[in-house]
């Protein structure tokens, strides 16, 4: 378990982490997702004790490793925090064979030579590197080196594993395989894990729980659906590439919430009386928006708005279509569907999305 309470850190009088609170439950694998420079590594280094926070408390498995307990200041050494850390760069000891790298942490545990040997072999086997035991790090591929680094970090039986963009040290064409290997190992370990990445797909692939970091604190924590469908901040919505609109919740209408966007378009969302009268932010996933040449009249709760196609960008299998409704709306569909519809830039088209796909929240006051 990792628990962080109102953690703050300044670098050269610039706030890097501010009043950050986060909890990773026991045996939970959590991805810490955020753009480069959002303070993810700083946070990880503070948990590891490589960097000292200015204020706040950090607990690992209910033990305070940094903070103020009454009048007592606590700041445990990195080696006392029972953590394993896999770094962004290859951090293996270049002058030691793989087996000696892995055994490094064991040597300070005061256990017998035969026990060290036994545990080293178990770890080598765990990361499938037994046949590489006698090689030096530079004789291994990036992925193998990172697997060795994982094994080395596990030697001291950490209660928490921290991984900082471990994939970035691996050749691009081998990254997918490496991610799958890593996920397999992390699942087998059943240890509290915090996995730092700036890559959206990777974050969702490695963990079931995601914490999105930005603006010096954690913006939102949740599983895949909560993050995508119940986005709680503009920052997260922008990072996920969602449609973001500013509007005002007007009233309840037939059990739905009526929202006015830009004073000219009304959309329906799931009922939420608390928001009535408030300025709200609306997010819709691009893939939840469909479009057709004719107006659909099947349901009154389905939003159906006429717009003009302003841009079409084709990627490998999908096409991103931007439609102007008085404000731009991003949609994503298969290239085949675009072909079947036979539409192009400048065409008028009806945009359709269900009320349940309209996520509404009122932005928290942020400083």
């Amino acid at each position, binding site marked *: 378990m990792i628990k962080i309470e109102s953690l703050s850190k300044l670098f050269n009088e610039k706030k890097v982490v501010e009043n950050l609170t986060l909890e990773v439950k026991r045996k939970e694998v959590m991805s810490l997702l955020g753009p480069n420079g959002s303070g993810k590594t700083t946070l990880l280094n503070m948990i590891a004790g490589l960097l000292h926070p200015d204020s706040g408390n950090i607990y690992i498995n209910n033990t305070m490793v940094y903070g103020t307990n009454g009048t007592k200041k606590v700041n445990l050494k990195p080696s006392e925090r029972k953590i394993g*850390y896999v770094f962004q760069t290859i951090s*293996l000891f270049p002058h030691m064979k793989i087996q000696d790298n892995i055994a490094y942490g064991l040597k300070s545990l005061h256990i017998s030579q035969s026990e060290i040997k036994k545990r080293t072999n178990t770890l080598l086997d765990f990361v499938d590197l037994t046949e590489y035991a006698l090689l030096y790090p530079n004789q291994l591929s990036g992925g193998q080196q990172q697997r060795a680094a994982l094994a080395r970090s596990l030697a001291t039986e950490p209660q928490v594993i921290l991984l900082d963009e471990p994939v970035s040290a691996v050749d691009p064409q081998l990254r997918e395989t490496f991610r799958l290997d890593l996920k397999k190992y992390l699942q087998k370990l059943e240890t509290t894990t915090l996995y730092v990445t700036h890559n959206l797909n990777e974050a969702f692939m490695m963990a079931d729980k995601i914490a999105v970091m930005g603006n010096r604190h954690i913006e939102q924590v949740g599983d895949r659906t909560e993050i995508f469908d119940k986005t709680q901040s503009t920052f997260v919505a922008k990072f996920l590439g969602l449609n973001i609109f500013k509007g005002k919740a007007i009233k309840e209408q037939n059990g739905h919430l009526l929202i006015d966007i830009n004073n000219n378009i009304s959309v329906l969302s799931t009922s939420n009386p608390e928001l009535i009268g408030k300025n709200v932010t609306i997010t819709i996933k691009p893939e939840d928006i469909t479009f057709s040449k004719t107006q659909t009249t099947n349901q009154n709760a389905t939003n159906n708005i006429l717009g003009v196609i302003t841009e079409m960008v084709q990627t490998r299998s999908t096409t991103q279509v931007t439609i102007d409704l008085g404000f731009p709306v991003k949609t994503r569909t298969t290239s085949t569907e675009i072909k079947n519809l036979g539409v192009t830039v400048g065409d008028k088209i009806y945009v359709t999305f269900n009320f349940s796909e309209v996520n509404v929240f009122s932005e928290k006051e942020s400083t």
Partner: protein
Amino acid sequence: MTPPPTNVKQEDIKTKKPKQKTSKISQILDKTTTAFLMVIVVTYISFLTLPIIAVFLKLDIAQISTQLQNQGIIQAIELSLYTALIATLCSIILAVPTGYFLATRKFYGKTVIDTLMDLPLVLPPAVAGIALLYTFAPGGLLGPIFNRFGMIIPGYMGAVIIAQIFVASPFLIKSVKIGFENQDQAVYNSARILTGSRITVFFTISFPLAIRAIISGTLITWARSMGEFGATLMFAGNLPGITQTMPLAIYNMLYSDPIAGVMLSIVLISISFVVIVIVKLLEQKRYGDRK
């Protein structure tokens, strides 16, 4: 008024010809540039190597065995080996911790210290000699302190060693600094997480990773000590058996005993060559390579 096809063809040829010309010109230009560069490179390399060859050409192989019994030569070699060894050992004691400190600590005025440490590297040896005199001579800055203990520095073997340390040890500081600075912080942090003792981390990680740079720096410092001339001449003097190291002996023998001078020169050239080869090999070696 459409032009006949022949015209078009002519135009084609017209446009093609100048193109070929320019490519020919650029080819010629390319070749001239290469030739020009070659001339400079060959001239320069000859300029650097011919003097060395000239020394070897002066060597009379039949004389080697008799020269090896030349007291002047043996004395100079012994003195040089002895003083350079002590100077190098002192340099290790002083420069390795200093280099480590400069590489791993941040403090106010560090750039100034760094610059001061580099100064002896570019300082003319004659100036170094004068500077040492004004510091250690009986009338110098620290002279009174030595006088009190009845010690006189210039003119004794100690002065040779001091001159060598002053001129050569900054090479070691530089090497040591680079050796510790070039280490990945993540490597160091990994070790800190795995073991509680900073001393263990130093002796198992930081120091082994810097050892090649330290050895290279030590060899260069030693070679530089062996070759020290100007500062030694000015500060320690040129007394056979006491302060006359190999370079000073060569200077003396130039007219009196040129064959001995050549012998000593060849010894110094060989030392320089071996040191450079070892340093190169150390730089290239990767962990896990077969020896």
